[in-house]
């Protein structure tokens, strides 16, 4: 038998090892975070948020059109993907038997692993070329295709966590199955579903490649949803690849805004989850 002190030393050593490895994993994140804040925060001011990009050579300029463009396209994408994705995930969780369910599950898994540039290319060929132009519609559709499988999978996982006997309790009250799913299973999972949705929005907020091929970008305000539309990510890209020092600053500032948005979405998502766990 091992002595008490020996066990204690061993235990502390393993604890330290785990702590150290965790720290190791967190370090890159912290470095990126602080670097973006340091480089971006300085270039940030009110006019950066409210004005259009400035022409080359002129000082100032901002990302107002890119913010609105990103917001519009993400909102449109959410409008499509959230309801469809939640219903799809509900189907997978509540009716897992049968061919339809397993093939749908397979398709969704495949969709999750399609590289986003391929989705961009696909929308380019299917929407942009026939419509003879880049547009916010095309951008939103590309984002929706990326978002949909994420929402389906998170919904499925969340609903599967609900014990089976909750569903049975509903059925045993003489409530039809579809009502049990709607009024008990889905309604009871709203907090966690919201978390899943917020995380999927955060996930697509950072997409650049598919937008480059579909919404393209715009130095000015778009005249409508059928026009090339600026987005935060593409704007950051354009600023970053330019040869001008001042534009590099703008890229960092844009990156800062993007990082903060994603960060805040994650925090809210986590907050909702923690609160709902406390309640139950």
């Amino acid at each position, binding site marked *: 038998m091992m002595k008490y002190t020996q066990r204690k030393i061993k235990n502390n050593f393993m604890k330290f090892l785990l702590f150290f490895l965790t720290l190791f994993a967190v370090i890159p994140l912290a470095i990126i975070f602080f670097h973006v804040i340091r480089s971006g925060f300085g270039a940030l001011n009110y006019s950066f948020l409210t004005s259009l990009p400035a022409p080359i050579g002129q000082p100032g300029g901002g990302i107002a059109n890119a913010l609105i463009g990103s917001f519009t396209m993400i909102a449109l994408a959410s409008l499509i993907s959230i309801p469809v994705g939640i219903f799809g995930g509900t189907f997978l969780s509540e009716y897992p*038997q049968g061919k339809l369910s397993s093939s749908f599950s397979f398709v969704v898994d495949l969709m999750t692993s399609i590289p986003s540039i391929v989705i961009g290319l696909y929308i380019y060929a299917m929407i942009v070329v026939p419509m003879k132009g880049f547009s916010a519609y095309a951008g939103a559709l590309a984002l929706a295709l990326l978002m949909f499988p994420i929402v389906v999978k998170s919904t499925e996982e969340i609903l599967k966590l*609900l*014990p089976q*006997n*909750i569903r*049975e*309790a*509903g*059925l*045993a*009250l*003489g*409530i*039809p*199955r579809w*009502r049990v799913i709607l*009024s*008990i299973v889905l*309604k*009871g*999972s*709203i*907090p966690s579903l919201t978390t899943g949705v917020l995380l999927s929005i955060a996930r697509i907020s950072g997409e650049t490649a598919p937008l480059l091929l579909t919404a393209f970008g715009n130095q000015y305000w778009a005249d409508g949803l059928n026009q090339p539309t600026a987005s935060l990510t593409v704007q950051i890209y354009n600023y970053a690849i330019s040869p001008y020092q001042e534009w590099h600053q703008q890229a960092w500032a844009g990156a800062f805004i993007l990082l903060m948005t994603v960060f805040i979405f994650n925090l809210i998502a986590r907050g909702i989850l923690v609160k*709902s766990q406390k*309640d*139950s």
Partner: protein
Amino acid sequence: MNTNKILTIDQLSAGFGQAEIVKKISMAISTHEIAALIGPSGCGKSTFLRCLNRLHEENSEAWVNGEVNLEGKNIYQEGIDPVHVRSQIGMVFQKPNPFPSMSIFENVAAGLTIRGIKKRAYVSQVVEKSLRQAALWDEVKDKLKSPGTSLSGGQQQRLCIARALAINPPVILMDEPTSALDPISTSKIEELLLQLKKEVTIVIVTHNMQQAARISDQTSFFLMGELIETNNTKQFFTNPDDIRSENYISGRFG
């Protein structure tokens, strides 16, 4: 004699796919009595219970043969909607399972409101009555809006009983309702059941033989999917007809 039998089960068999878990069981259950089903794990008593409100068939590959007559009407007759059957036969499960994200009030009201009965005054009245019947009213009357899941285990189980009572079924099925509870909560529920049987008929599956002896009027002993014996509880525990029953209650197996 036959007129006060609220449930008569005739040649009921059930199972999943190839497996036959319940084998040709016939028995009758009297109105306003507590009928206990006992037997070792895997003897088919839970499956049998779940056939009585047609919940068994919700599992994949589940099948049922035979008749279950509720007040003289076969619930397995063609054209009978299982959803309707379940609104007449309540059920309480082994683990307390209040609906998530619903308040105490909403939990008890769920059977009414989800099925479209929304008249406020009526619903409140039913909720209060059901909670009183379940001996929970005094403990929760000041916090009806708190989540159902915030209650203790024993309270949650009484909440589930109130939820089942709210739709006013003549029969309530209970699948080991106290096996996840501490002794004090258990004895509260046992007292409650003795009160409740004045109004509803209770069929209870239990692993606890003392519980069956304490509260039931009739005891049925299941073994390997077969019904070995149904008898008056007192008779069953003092002088059972079948040697296997005697072996089981004296702890020689199971």
